[in-house]
């Protein structure tokens, strides 16, 4: 009888959703590598991968196969437990964030309303931040356990960079949270429906968040931990085979997730622009939810394209310049943004007119 009292439908529904989300983010991360090479080729006046499949569409599979077939080398002088744990941790933290993201509205299946979100917890953003800040351990542990001077320096760089930019990122979001008044990602998306996107109210906050997201993902111009011309690819220098693959993969999953979060917080999430979503639900039912997912993905793919565009255009910062930008540039700006938002919100909500 105890078993019957469980809501089995809910468990099945969530299990299916979790597997879809995990598979989807892995497939998207895979095709991001292909996309990155194609975007790079486009920017650099080349063709890019075009041998495997039509337009190189099978290239990610070939790359993955290659990585699996490579010999697994663990340096004798490394700390083996941590050496293996590093890439795993990087992958784990990259995948965990997707749990609280609302991918779309809701489906009506057999009289049940199924929200397209794994867990709508009321501290959604805090959870994201908690998991993202764990991501630094993947870089740090991997770099330290390799027992390589280049890796160690890269690990130090990575740790200090990620921690510094998390501060600015958090501060830029506080201003946003003052406007939304909630930490739940689904509520934030619903507030933005019918074109009231947060980017119109928080442009400065978005710019700070965007720069910090680049730094969090270790993308150029903030790719100091893996600076190939300085530190020989940094913290994953000693890695080979799929452990290296995990690090590279985690970077792309991170990039995907940060674009999703950016779209959710600032670009209305799954809100379809110029369309009344509630109205659409009345007309086409479940297809509306699907349209919302597609819309979110379109926003995300554009975000990913911008990330790649930046990577293939600009050189990288120097370490001290990066720290200066973080501590002396972005954090004061984020604080100023916070104060301005607070004053405006205070005036607005109390109906004080000047």
């Amino acid at each position, binding site marked *: 009888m105890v078993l019957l009292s469980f809501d089995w439908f809910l468990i099945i529904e969530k299990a299916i959703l979790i597997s879809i989300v995990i598979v989807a983010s892995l497939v998207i991360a895979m095709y991001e590598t292909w996309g990155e090479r194609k975007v*790079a080729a486009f*920017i*650099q*006046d*080349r063709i890019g991968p075009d041998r495997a499949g039509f337009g190189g569409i099978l290239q990610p599979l070939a790359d993955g196969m290659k990585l699996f077939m490579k010999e697994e080398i663990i340096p004798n*002088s*490394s*700390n083996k437990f941590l050496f293996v744990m590093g890439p795993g941790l990087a992958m784990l933290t990259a995948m965990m964030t997707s749990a609280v993201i609302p991918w779309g509205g809701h489906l009506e299946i057999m009289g049940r309303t199924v929200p397209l979100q794994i867990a709508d917890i009321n501290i959604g953003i805090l959870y994201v931040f908690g998991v993202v800040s764990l991501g630094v351990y993947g870089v740090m542990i991997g770099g330290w*356990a390799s*027992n390589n*001077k*280049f890796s*160690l*320096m890269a690990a130090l760089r990575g740790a200090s960079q990620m921690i510094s930019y998390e501060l600015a990122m958090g501060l830029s979001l506080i201003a946003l949270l003052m406007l939304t008044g909630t930490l739940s990602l689904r509520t934030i998306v619903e507030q933005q429906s019918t074109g009231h996107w947060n980017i119109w109210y928080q442009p400065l906050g978005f710019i700070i968040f965007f720069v910090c997201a680049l730094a969090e993902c270790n993308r*150029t*111009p903030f*790719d100091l931990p893996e*600076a*190939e*011309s*300085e*530190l*020989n690819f940094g913290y994953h220098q000693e890695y080979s085979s799929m452990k290296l693959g995990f690090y590279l993969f985690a970077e792309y999953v991170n990039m995907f997730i940060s674009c999703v979060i950016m779209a959710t917080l600032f670009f209305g999430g799954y809100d379809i622009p110029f369309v009344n979503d509630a109205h659409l639900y009345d007309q086409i039912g479940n297809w509306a939810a699907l349209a919302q997912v597609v819309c979110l993905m379109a926003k995300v793919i554009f975000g990913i394209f911008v990330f790649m565009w930046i990577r*293939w*255009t*600009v*050189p*990288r*910062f*120097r*370490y*001290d*310049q990066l720290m200066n930008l973080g501590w002396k540039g972005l954090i004061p700006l984020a604080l100023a943004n916070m104060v301005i938002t607070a004053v405006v919100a205070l005036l607005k909500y109390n109906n004080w007119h000047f």
Partner: protein
Amino acid sequence: MYTETQIINNSNDELVINVGPQHPATHGVLHLVITLQGETIKKVEPHLGYIHRSIEKMCESLTYRQFICASSRMDYLSAHINNHACALTVEKGAQIEVPQRAQYIRVIMDELTRIASHELWWGAMAMDLGAFTPFFYAFREREVITEIMEETCGARLTMNYMVPGGVMTDIHPDFQKRVKEFIQLFKSKIDEYDDLVTNNIIFQNRTKGVGHLSKEDAISYGCTGAVARASGVSCDIRKLYPYDIYDKVTFNEILETAGDSFARYMIRMGEMRESIKIIEQLIDNIPEGDYQAKTKAVLKLPKGDFYTRVETARGELGVYIVSEGAATPYRIKFRSPGFSNLSALDQMARGGKIGDLMATMGTLDLVIPDIDR
């Protein structure tokens, strides 16, 4: 297992790392032993010799026609200018009069080589600073030059086009047309380079005030080429001691006074524009006539020593031949620009960060076989 002594080698909190011989930033087999304190560089110690092929010794058993080809393998990016230096020295010794047509062709080829070399430097330097795209752009335009070279000389990198008394063969009928097309193309592209890299704020922050070399130091280390000119030392051999027809063309010697990486960068960007100017003046005026002087089948230099210097893409290349009157040189010494420029690296990099070292090394434009020979 990991031990602390493996990471920290002494009590001054100093960390010694080996950059090279296999490292992406050294562009070859240069080995730098760097002493670091945190990210700050305390000392840079270059270790040479990984690609020493004893070219100077080899030249002693080669005839005066043959040894020119060996010099291509020193600074392979400006192979043609190296050959030019050798040919000039032999001509000076054997007192060969070079026909006007050959002189024009030589200078045009020299300047094309200089542009090609600077293009590769530009791409590689941007790549050292973390930007990949310029590398492909640079190679795209460099490809046009190498194709022009291939058409006339038959080779793309080590041309072996130079012989004592002129050039090996006459230019290809399409040569002038294709060079003019290239000039048109390159003039628009070099502005694109400026937009992409020179005016980039991150790039300027990375290079301005980095790797400073004072005028006195530049002279005392024997720096030449763009490295010395960026510190305000006027040392363009083409201007100071003109060879072939460099005294008949008008061009500016680019000089900067800042002495930092950005100044060195600007010098080379300016030099590319000046090279275009030189080619433009010459390409329509190549005189008719012989492309090669009549020389004896076996060239012999009289007893004595002969020295000539030219301006390669990297600086001053000196060729010193000691002759005993035989068909092969008794001793040959090459004064290569890269070796002297590298010696200033320690001075320039000290006190900077690791990222600064890469920016400095990038603007030194080192070609490792040129250093080791």
